[in-house]
């Protein structure tokens, strides 16, 4: 089989790279390249195409400059012909010469199940492998070479060594320290413990049996103990009561001798009881009798206090008139009060009006009289008013006349003389125009007029107010009136003076304009004055006329007054009581007179009624007094009567109750007396029963009886005590046997000793039982067996696992040994023969053969003289030669099964020139029959292949 050439699509540094290992029919391909030129990559590429690479390694060769990974390898097979292998990231294609695709099984068969590791161990030899050989120490070297010679792999040595080590660690059939041996020892211990634990558990059941038998034995002993204890107790009891028992026996005998004494059953109690009851009855009888006497007395008293029925009837009847009497008294009092009131009212009238009721006794005051009196009074009032009015008018007249007189007088004093006036008049007329004169005159007149109006007004007001003052008596009116009059006078006065001046002016001698004006004024003034005086004189005349009228009226009033006087006198004559009374009071007097007369009449009526009532009262009081005398009571009242009725009722009831009580008491007395009789009978019966006749004998008989009973009691008591002290059986023993203190004591001592013995034994057995039970409890709680069983199973499992591990390693190791042996048998002879040949050539016949020693555990090398050397005795260079010889020989021999090309990578790197030459020669020689692809990075090695006669057989590549 030959590798013809490769086409790398992309692998490591190679991208789209073609390389022919064979051009025509060459068997040797020498590839030279410096370090890092890609030689190793080429070798890895071939392995990749053939066997694929593990993913991680494949990743290492992914081309950096292309995405197309993979390539082709063309193989030339002698039988099948050309086969093309194409492997990429995604597929692997195998094609034969005709381009037919072959499946994977075909391909694996084609390669005879060759794997990459097998291929590498047989056909791929590298400088590194040599380096490993060189680094080994000499002993190891032998083994490695041995292995190489047998399998072609120098790794086997390591594997063997590791297996052996592990094996020894795990187990040595005769050893102690290895893991399994230790585990086995531990197992022995565990088994011992397990056995003990099992025995322990077995002992549980033995303990159980022991426990049962101990319990039975303890029960027996307990029974015995109880028996002895009872005996002892009996004897001790006997001992301490021996004296009492003897006494008892004697008393019992005496009792038997005396026999039964008769005495009534509970005779003394019964007798005492009867006695006590009798006494009690006596007491009761006494008490009842006393009470009866008392009740009798009470009844008598009550009888006295109860009135006869007719008397009671009277009381009831009278009591019924109580209301009537009370009303009577009330009426009397009321009428009396009324009379008193009337008297008081009458006295008041009499006192205040100076009247006397006797005056009016026979008079009749009718309404006719009253009307008459009223009209009289009115007339009188009218007269008074008229009289007064007249007087006022008189006075007013007089005042006015006086005033006017005065005014005239004063005006006259101001007036010029007649001549002066005429002069003035003349002057004025002369000097003034008519109009001026008129004007002036007019003015003066006007002025005069105004002054007069003011004067009159003031005076009128003054008069009116003065009159008013007289009527009303108000001072303020008078003052205002006076002031008004005064004002009128003053104004008038001033006007007069002005007028005078005018007059003066006109009357002056100086007849100039101012004089003239003054004359004119005086003239006007003088005229006014004269006019005023004239007016006042007119008024006076008018007033004289009025005076006449007033005088006439005054006469009429006088006449009326007289008529009235006569009428009044007539009335006074008719009613003399009016004599001293002013007429103005008559009206009011009439009413009072009438009232007084009413009072008098009323009083008379009331007095009459009162008299009647008082008579009635006296009658009723008499009746009461009579009743009081009838029941021996001095004083009785109607209130008292009421109580008396109730009292009588109460007395009667009480009497009835007391009577009943008396009867009751009598009955009780009878009952008690009969009971007493029974008691006496009983007492007699007791005496009879006790065969005695009186109390003293009865008591004596009782004492005898009691004494005997006491004895019997003490005997009975002791018998009871005996029952508590001893069982029936023991009592039997006690009473029927004769006991002495000594025999009892002896027996006590004997039983005590025996009891102690039993108790001691019992204690021992209890102790034993406790121990057994403790052991049982311990066993019951113990999980030791359970845990040990589990542990045992686990440890056993460990042993199995260790044993398996050991067998595994042992088997592996032994399998390698066995394989080696077979391998040797099958191939070693041929390999050694071939290797010897190669070695001889490489060493230029310094050595002529390679073989194993007889034990087949050591390689021997024979030199040209026939002397044997062990590997250890060889130089490093010779070992390299030996290694190469062996590897080439193995390949040579294996090629008979599958002839694949060698891939040799710088395997002569350590050789000197001389050795190199021989080695190259050998390679060229081997390459005659078998393809060799030789790679080197050493130029001198590469150049060694430049021998002329080789040219036809060598393909050379120089990688750059």
């Amino acid at each position: 089989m030959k590798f013809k050439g490769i086409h790398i699509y992309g692998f490591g540094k190679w991208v789209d790279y073609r390389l022919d290992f064979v051009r025509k029919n060459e068997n040797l391909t020498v590839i030279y390249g410096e370090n890092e030129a890609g030689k190793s990559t080429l070798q890895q590429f071939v392995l990749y195409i053939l066997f694929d690479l593990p993913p991680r390694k494949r990743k290492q060769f992914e081309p950096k400059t292309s995405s197309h990974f993979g390539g082709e390898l063309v193989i030339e097979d002698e039988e099948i012909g050309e086969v093309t292998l194409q492997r990429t990231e995604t597929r692997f294609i195998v094609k034969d010469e005709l381009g037919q695709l072959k499946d994977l099984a075909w391909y694996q068969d084609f390669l005879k199940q060759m794997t990459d590791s097998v291929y590498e161990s047989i056909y791929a030899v590298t400088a590194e492998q040599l380096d490993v050989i060189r680094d080994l120490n000499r002993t190891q070297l032998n083994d490695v070479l041995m292995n190489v010679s047998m399998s072609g792999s120098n790794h086997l040595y390591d594997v063997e060594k590791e297996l052996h080590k592990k094996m020894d660690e795990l187990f040595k059939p005769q050893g102690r320290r290895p893991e399994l041996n230790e585990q086995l020892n531990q197992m022995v211990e565990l088994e011992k413990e397990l056995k003990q634990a099992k025995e322990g558990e077995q002992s549980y059941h033995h303990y159980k049996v022991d426990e049962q038998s101990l319990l039975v034995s303890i029960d027996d002993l307990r029974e015995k103990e109880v028996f002895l204890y009872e005996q002892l107790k009996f004897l001790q009891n006997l001992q301490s009561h021996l004296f009492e028992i003897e006494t008892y026996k004697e008393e019992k005998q005496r009792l038997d001798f005396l026999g039964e004494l008769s005495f009534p059953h509970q005779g003394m109690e019964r007798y005492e009881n009867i006695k006590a009851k009798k006494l009690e009855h006596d007491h009761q009888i006494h008490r009842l009798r006393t009470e009866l006497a008392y009740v009798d007395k009470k009844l008598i008293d009550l009888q006295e206090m109860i009135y006869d029925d007719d008397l009671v009837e009277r009381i009831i009847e009278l009591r019924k008139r109580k209301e009537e009497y009370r009303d009577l008294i009330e009426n009397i009092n009321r009428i009396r009060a009324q009379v008193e009131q009337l008297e008081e009212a009458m006295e008041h009238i009499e006192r205040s009006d100076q009247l006397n009721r006797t005056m009016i006794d026979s008079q009749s005051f009718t309404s006719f009289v009253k009307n008459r009196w009223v009209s009289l009074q009115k007339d009188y009032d009218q007269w008074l008013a008229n009289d007064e009015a007249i007087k006022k008018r008189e006075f007013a007249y007089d005042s006015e006349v006086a005033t006017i007189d005065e005014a005239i007088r004063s005006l006259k004093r101001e007036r010029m003389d007649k001549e002066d006036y005429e002069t003035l008049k003349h002057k004025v007329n002369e000097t003034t125009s008519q109009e001026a004169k008129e004007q002036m005159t007019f003015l003066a007149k006007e002025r005069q007029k105004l002054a007069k109006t003011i004067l009159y007004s003031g005076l009128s007001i003054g008069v009116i107010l003065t009159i008013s003052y007289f009527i009303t008596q108000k001072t303020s009116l008078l003052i205002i009136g006076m002031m008004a009059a005064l004002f009128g006078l003053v104004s008038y006065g001033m006007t007069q003076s002005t007028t005078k001046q005018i007059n003066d002016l006109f009357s002056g001698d100086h007849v100039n304009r101012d004089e003239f004006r003054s004359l004119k004024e005086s003239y006007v003034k003088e005229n006014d004055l004269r006019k005023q005086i004239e007016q006042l004189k007119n008024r006076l005349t008018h007033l004289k006329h009025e005076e006449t009228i007033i005088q006439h009226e005054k006469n009429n009033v006088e006449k009326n007054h007289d008529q009235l006087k006569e009428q009044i006198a007539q009335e006074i004559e008719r009613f003399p009581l009016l004599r001293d009374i002013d007429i103005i009071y008559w009206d009011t007097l009439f009413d009072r007179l009438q009232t007084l007369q009413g009072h008098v009449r009323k009083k008379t009526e009331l007095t009459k009624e009162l008299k009647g009532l008082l008579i009635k009262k006296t009658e009723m009081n008499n009746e009461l007094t009579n009743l009081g005398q009838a029941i021996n009571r001095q004083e009785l009242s109607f209130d008292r009567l009421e109580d008396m009725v109730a009292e009588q009722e109460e007395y009667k009831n009480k009497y009835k109750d007391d009577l009943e009580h008396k009867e009751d008491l009598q009955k009780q007395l009878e009952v008690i007396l009969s009971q007493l009789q029974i008691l006496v009978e009983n007492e007699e019966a007791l005496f009879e029963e006790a065969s005695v006749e009186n109390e003293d004998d009865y008591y004596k008989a009782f004492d005898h009886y009691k004494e005997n009973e006491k004895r019997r009691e003490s005997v009975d008591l002791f018998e009871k005590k005996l029952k508590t002290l001893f069982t029936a059986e023991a009592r039997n023993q006690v009473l029927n046997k004769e006991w002495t203190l000594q025999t009892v004591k002896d027996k006590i001592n004997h039983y005590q000793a025996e009891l102690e013995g039993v108790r001691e034994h019992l204690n021992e057995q209890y102790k034993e039982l406790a121990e057994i039970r403790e052991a049982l409890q311990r066993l019951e709680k113990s999980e030791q067996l359970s845990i040990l069983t589990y542990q045992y199973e686990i440890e056993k499992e460990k042993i199995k696992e260790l044993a398996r591990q050991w067998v595994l390693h042992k088997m592996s190791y032994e399998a390698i040994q066995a394989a080696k042996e077979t391998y040797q048998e099958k191939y070693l002879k041929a390999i050694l023969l071939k290797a010897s040949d190669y070695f001889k050539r490489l060493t230029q016949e310094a050595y002529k053969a390679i073989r194993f020693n007889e034990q087949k555990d050591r390689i021997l090398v024979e030199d040209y003289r026939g002397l044997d050397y062990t590997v250890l005795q060889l130089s490093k260079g010779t070992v390299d030669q030996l290694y190469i010889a062996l590897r080439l020989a193995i390949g040579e021999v294996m090629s008979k099964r599958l002839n694949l090309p060698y891939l040799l990578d710088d395997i002569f790197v350590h050789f000197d020139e001389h050795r190199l030459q021989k080695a190259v020669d050998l390679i060229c020689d081997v390459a005659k029959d078998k393809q060799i692809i030789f790679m080197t990075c050493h130029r001198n090695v590469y150049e060694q292949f430049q021998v002329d006669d080789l040219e036809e057989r060598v393909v050379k590549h120089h990688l750059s």
Partner: protein
Amino acid sequence: MDEKITFIHTADLHLDSPFKGLSYLPEALFHKLQESTYKAFENIVQAAIDRQVDFVLIVGDLFEQENQSLKAQLFLRKCFERLQAFKIQVYVSYGNHDFLKGNQFKMTYPDNVHVFSNERVQALHFKRSGRVLANIYGFSYENRQVFDNKVNEYIVEKNEAPFHIAMLHGMLQGEEGHDPYAPFQINDLLNKQMDYWALGHIHKSKVVATVPPIVYPGNIQGRHRNEAGERGYYYVEMDRSDVSYEFLPSASIIFENVILSLADKQSFRESIQYMTSILSKQKKNTFVELTLQIKEEQNSLSYLNRLKEWIELWNAEQDSENFAYIYKHKIQYPKIKPQFEASFIHEIEQVLFHDEVFAQEIKQLVFGHPSLRKYIVDETLDGVEEEAYQLMMQMLHQNEVTE
């Protein structure tokens, strides 16, 4: 009268029997394991009380061995006393593991416990208010082995009892993995006019027939890889017209055999994610035997060592109250490829798999070893040849890789 009865049917308690196949356990789990058979029976006792059953049937193999441990016996007595307090009757027949003659010291049980006292089939009567409601038939093994077919001895007793229940500790013909004691065939049982056949002996729960029910409850607590999965007992209700029966779990610890393929997992990380997800889904308190299938590329010492480390880590993280503990792990290797004829590996393969003497001789070193041999059984070394081959491949390969 109420003609309904309820009972619990259990068998093969194997109290205090050690577990097999465990070579290392943390203390807390060890304790849990040690208590598990007890705990399982306690669960049943509690169920009997909670459901107020009339009686409990225990069809043989109460104990692992004839020399019963004291702890187991005392425990059982305590349980019986507890049932007595609730007036629950117990019918016990002994089987091949706890046969009568094997134990000379019998523990005394309270009055509610009725034991079939010999190897002759007899009827015990369950009474309620003085009336017999059920005839319970059965026998106990006097010796370890009973090879006779006992079925013919089961004859329905003619009395007032409306219900007939048979207890039989024996082997259904055709079943495997157990000793062929008291063998019988289904047809034998069907013809016996029984209302319920309470079987024991086979540790896997199985309803053999339904009319009438013929039931193996299985053992109450799994103890090794061959007793994987849920374990329990049957709760039965019976009246004139109907029999209903229900399987209820009792085990406090479960054994599971988990096989996982890692071949399709691209990375180690992905592998452990997958394992974690599967293991986390296990029932509470499970002992897992983990078999990992790997592919060629994963068959390296480094990968396998990492797996081993991860398993140790996983186990260390398990809580004693809730765990899925990997007590054993196995690697299922890829199929062994044929090797190049002239290769050394080919020779090894020849030696290991085709040389019958070679393997036997090496195994004999163990089987013949005076102190080792008593602990080793054939299964101990099952598949060791293949494992050795894989080991060598790994080691040879390992060395090449490190080179």
